[in-house]
């Protein structure tokens, strides 16, 4: 498919989703899936996509095609970080592997999950930094990455945080265009993430 066609219909597809999408303002105290609490200093826009089967929440400041702040809370052992589109698998064949959390995963493996997730649409992902951190009150990992987005060639920068408590995964990622937007918005994202606390 030519790039122009892809982009055109990607836009239209988004529009067709739009008819059933709802976006609400989130402010003050928020909870992700009842298991991670957050204290917001700024208001954000929480997007609820139709047929929402994804294991993460997605928030945005400037719009879905610009910046996204995603949260995962209490992903269990063998829980997928993202659900692939459903489709039939031929006899004897295997389904596409999808980044899946497994207890006992080492920090580098956790980072790999996100690296694979962001690569799955043909985008090019590079991990630029990995370091220990405290996330949501637990010892965890913080990583910085860049994404070259396949659909429109936009270059993005990202930060990710991940921690495991009692065999459940908690994580957040923030991604925004390298030019102007990332530096402008990262403070807001980091402030939310800093407030995260695991519940239950």
């Amino acid at each position, binding site marked *: 498919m*030519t*790039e*122009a066609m892809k982009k055109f219909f990607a836009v239209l597809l988004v529009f067709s989703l739009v008819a059933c999408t709802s976006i609400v303002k989130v402010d003050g105290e928020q909870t992700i899936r009842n298991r991670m609490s957050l204290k917001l200093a700024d208001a954000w826009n929480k997007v609820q996509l139709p047929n929402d089967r994804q294991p993460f929440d997605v928030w945005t400041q400037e719009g879905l095609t610009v910046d996204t702040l995603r949260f995962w809370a209490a992903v269990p052992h063998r829980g997928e970080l993202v659900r692939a589109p459903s489709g039939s*698998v*031929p*006899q*004897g*064949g*295997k*389904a*596409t*592997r999808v*980044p899946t959390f*497994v207890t006992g995963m*080492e*920090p*580098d*493996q956790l980072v*790999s999950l996100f*690296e*694979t997730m962001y*690569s*799955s649409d*043909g985008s*090019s*992902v590079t*991990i*630029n*930094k*990995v*370091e*220990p951190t405290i996330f949501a009150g637990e010892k965890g*990992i913080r990583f*910085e990455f860049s994404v*070259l987005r*396949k659909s429109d*060639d936009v*270059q993005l920068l990202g930060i990710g945080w991940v921690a495991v408590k009692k065999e459940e995964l908690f994580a957040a990622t923030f991604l925004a265009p390298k030019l102007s937007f990332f530096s402008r918005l990262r403070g807001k994202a980091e402030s939310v993430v800093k407030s995260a606390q695991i519940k239950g």
Partner: protein
Amino acid sequence: MLTRRGMLGSVCKQCLGISAFTQAPMALSQTSSEPAANSAPVLPGRFERPRIDTEEGGLWGMMDREEAKLRRSPFVIRDLALTKYVQDIACRLAADHCPDVRVYLVRTPLFNASMAPNGMMQVWSGLLLRVENEAQLAAILGHEIGHYLERHTLERMRDMKNRAAFAQLIGLFGLVGALGQLGVLSGMSAFSREQETSADRAGMRLMQSAGYDGQQAARVWDNLIGELKIKGGENAGSRSPLMASHPPAATRRDDLMRLAGDKSGESGATEFQKATALHKITWLQDEIKRGQYEESLVLFDRLIGQNPVDAQTLFARGEVYRQRDDKDDLQRSIEDLSRAAQIGNPPVEVFRSLGLIYKKQQDSTLALQSFEKYLAAAPEAADTSLIKNYITDLKP
């Protein structure tokens, strides 16, 4: 066949050498009764830019705009030497059409190549990782040039328009209509399969004429079957799903073997390895990032089988085993990574991966050794602070 040529001829009034065009592609894609060795393929004359108000002109125009965008894309591999290497091969294959072919190498870890009606050719890095030598690359490029010379994209668009209209009419009539639709559309797939076979034949003549070993074309598909079976099941090579627009891989392999015949030729393994050497580790890492471990293992097994002392591929396979971490995987990983470490110039990540395995297995001494080697070789690595923490934890 003749009708289609006639149709194209009538549209392409402005094209030069109309008779050459209507005759030559048949020579190109039909199996000659003469032994292949004696007849060089007769190519159509260079295409003149089609008039803008024709169907073909429409496609060209859109492709030109696509090309402008592609040219600006950060996904294009901007290595002049590598691009020239591939461009030169395409040039040799395309003969007189050489000036019209423009090659773009794109960093995407999947097996694919395509050629647009305006001469723009794309080759993905996943393909460059999977072919073993210059002849296999030439087989693919030749196939794409075959599509280009026979104007398949235009044919396809026309055919699809006719079939879509027909399908829509049939669709009005309920269940019978639905089945009719399926039949019509799978008919379209058959048409595409014809084109693919035709392009295979054309590609074979082009590559053999340029002195390459035609059997390498069959090997490309043979090599892919293993990977295809992971998602496609055991029959992936020998069956096509109903709507497949390409013949099944095993059929292509067999047909290409037959077409190749006994003619000998060059495979150009050394030249290819030299040209792609600098990029290989990047492409291997891109493949690992896909997270499709079983497919990657089939690929890496094959590459290592070809060259058992390649430190980079051994590292790649070891890394996949480490990430998959199924039963016995860590042991296999250690074997591959250790072997890579012993060969000269392993990727520095070998020591990182070994360190991580030893750490997981609680072998502090070996873990420390490996991590320290890694940090010494890569002081600017992304995860230095994490590894330094590990070192501190591991020290007695």
